[in-house]
């Protein structure tokens, strides 16, 4: 049998790769959004592993809602990116400084 710690360590490594993606790819909005999706995936895996080992279904219900919110957030983030590209013809994060003092 596979112990729970294996699943949790796998989710932790996936999560830290998502964080590394955010740290290393600061200029690229697309990779930023994808690193956020990676982090959400790691958290989902955590929930499902605990749901299996504790014999509950509550973890899976929560994963259901996290998937919903992640899909909504990805759609709105991409819509904002599309408008940014229409206005400035590039997708650098540095261009989003109109509110800078």
């Amino acid at each position: 049998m596979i112990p729970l710690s294996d699943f949790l360590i796998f989710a932790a490594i996936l999560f830290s790769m998502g964080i590394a993606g955010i740290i290393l790819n600061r200029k690229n909005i697309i990779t930023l959004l994808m690193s956020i999706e990676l982090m959400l995936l790691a958290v989902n895996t955590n929930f499902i592993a605990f749901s299996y080992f504790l014999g509950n279904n509550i973890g899976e219900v929560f994963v259901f809602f996290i998937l919903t919110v992640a899909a909504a957030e990805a759609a709105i983030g991409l819509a904002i990116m599309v408008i940014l590209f229409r206005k400035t013809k590039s997708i650098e994060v540095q261009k989003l400084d109109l509110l800078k003092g």
Partner: protein
Amino acid sequence: MTFLQLLFYTFAMLALIGAFMVVVSKNPVQSVLFLVFTFFATAGIWMILHSEFLSLVLVLVYVGAVMTLFLFVVMMLSVHIETLREGFVRYLPFGLIIVGILIALTVMVLGPARFGLAQMPAPGLKPADYSNLANLGSVLFTDYAYPFEVAGVILLTAIIAAISLAHRPPHKRKTQNVVDQINVTPKDRLRIIKMPSEKN
């Protein structure tokens, strides 16, 4: 090593390789495709954890809809690949240190000493008529019916937001005015001129 362990380690390695390539890829389209690959491998792991419905929902909805959306947007935007990698080498040691500390801390806390098979025993085999979908539905629609409706409202909000953001009004577009078209009379379109016919 049992077949289940072999399967888990295979899927885990594939998912971690895919995640690594997502972060490291130069081409955004390659990044999105590696993320799709990671999602497929993680769906396999969720299937090992007896949640068949959610692993298939991950593939159908998350990969099929959200990642397809990503691909469309990535291919629509023309990206200058050189300017996007400027901060990569500068932040690389900092990023590696952070990742190393995170992994070390989580392995210490979540390691086999606390969450091994002695502390959290693996649940036994389920009966033959066990249906993950039925169990999930019986909890979702009774105890969690209100959050379910709120999730629907969240999706509605996302639809309204995305459409109102990305919609372009017919600013220079030539469209038809249906009311004008219906109110047209023959006099507006046709003018009959009476001319005497010429001889020879």
